[in-house]
């Protein structure tokens, strides 16, 4: 076993300097948890609670924080590259769809699979299009393809299915579960859609509003395969919210899409570039 991808996170503080008044903004505080190899871990919390910062630290992009992030006993930048899907699609506008995915692959065998993967996510007619010619949702799908094409041992996804319509999002969720299962990738999946988290995850971490702290660490014991609209998921969701009203307050106050009792589907507007 060469690749384990055990992630150990021990961050006492992550702050940002605010330029306008020189003050310090604490976004994360006392975040301590570890993710087992192959675990699908969702991180749920209101916007602005530091979820993206957390992914940046795990990916090795952000090394400016107090504490440590250790992947398989080393620094994040020492291990194999993760697949990272940013909140915005961040495609290279001068590269065609296929070239954008090709950019992150060096292995000729993987390159052969690009068209197949693009077909699986419904972009077979757009492989030669430039990102500017795609809709926001299609660009997200390309970004997802770029993140998973190498079937990386570690996958970081920042609200990947935001603003996609439900059938497409569900198809992509299934694809994601497939890909992760194939290589037993370790996944960190940021969302503020609890239903989505419970459908996908082995484990859900709830983070409070800023400064973000872990308020609940829940192992999801619903058997796979699950269905996205399954009753067991809805029951678990209601149960969690009932037992932990503080989750609810966090999500509702800052999430902007709070709808505690009913449908919290992922269909709210979000700027996508």
């Amino acid at each position, binding site marked *: 076993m060469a690749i384990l991808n055990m992630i150990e996170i021990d961050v006492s503080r992550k702050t940002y300097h605010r330029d306008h008044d020189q003050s310090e903004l604490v976004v994360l505080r006392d975040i301590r948890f570890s993710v087992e190899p192959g675990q699908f871990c969702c991180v749920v919390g209101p916007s602005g609670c530091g979820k993206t910062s957390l992914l940046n630290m795990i990916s090795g992009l952000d090394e400016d924080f107090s504490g440590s992030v250790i992947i398989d006993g080393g620094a994040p930048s020492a291990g194999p*590259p993760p*697949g990272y899907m940013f909140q915005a699609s961040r495609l*290279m*506008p*001068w590269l*065609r769809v296929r070239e954008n995915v090709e*950019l992150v692959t060096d292995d000729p065998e993987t390159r052969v699979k690009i068209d197949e993967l693009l077909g699986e996510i419904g972009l077979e007619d757009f492989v030669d299009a*430039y990102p*500017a010619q795609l809709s926001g949702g299609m660009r997200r799908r390309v970004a997802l393809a770029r993140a998973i094409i190498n079937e990386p041992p570690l996958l970081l996804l920042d609200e990947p299915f935001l603003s996609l319509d439900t059938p497409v999002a569900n198809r992509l969720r299934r694809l994601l579960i497939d890909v992760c299962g194939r290589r037993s990738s370790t996944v960190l999946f940021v969302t503020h859609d609890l239903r989505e988290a419970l459908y996908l995850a082995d484990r859900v971490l709830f983070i409070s509003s800023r400064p973000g702290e872990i308020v609940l660490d829940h192992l999801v014991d619903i058997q796979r395969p699950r269905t996205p609209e399954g009753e067991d998921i809805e029951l678990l969701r209601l149960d969690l919210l009932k037992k932990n009203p503080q989750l609810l307050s966090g999500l509702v106050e800052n999430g902007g899409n709070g709808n505690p009792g009913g449908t919290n589907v992922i269909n709210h507007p979000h700027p996508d570039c």
Partner: protein
Amino acid sequence: MKPSIRIRSIPWLRIGSLILFIAVWQLAAAFVDRQILPGPYQVLLSVIEHLERGELVFHLLATLARVLISFVFAMALGVALGIVMGRNRNWDAALDGVLILALNLPALVTIVLCYLWFGLGEFAAILAVAINKFPIVVVNMREGARAIDQDLLQVAKAFRLDWRKRWLQVYLPQLYPYLLASARSGLALVWKIVLVVELLGRSNGVGFQLGIYFQFFDITSILAYSFTFIAVVMAIEYLLITPLDRRLMKWRS
């Protein structure tokens, strides 16, 4: 349907304005002494005559060689320094003053000083032209380097792209618009300054020839040389830079 009509009429507008220009010129020439303003046909005959004698091509090539060398020289150094200044605040602060000085230095001053310091040679001539072009490239490329999208560089970093991919597929494409703008304005500026340099201190090239015809009051030959050279520069623009622009900027359409 409107846009297509507009697009179709554009070549006709171009050709129409050219014909109008020649017509006005011809008309003006009819009222003025031939020595002062020769007509377009006379100038054309003069071009053919100079071409047949061979000296036009010789001087044209001499000038083009100087344009090319000083252009490449100024672009290479200007792009490098521009990127450094755009990326690094310290370098920017340290060199900004010198840059403003260089931008405001009159072309004639650099030319005269280069000739005085390095002698009336090829090196001084090309250096003088390059010094005139260089600061403009720096300013342009600094702007480009400042506008680099950090989010895309993060993508390159997160996926651990090697330096070649990072440079050629993530960084450089963001600078293409600035490179092309520099090349365009550069070509126009460089060839004008090369003529002055040749007039003042070389014994061949279009500028040198213009100096001679100036002394002989030969306006026809002056116009013949000028238009030939303009045609060459336009050919470079349309055959080289415009296709390159179209290729590199294809994703924008």
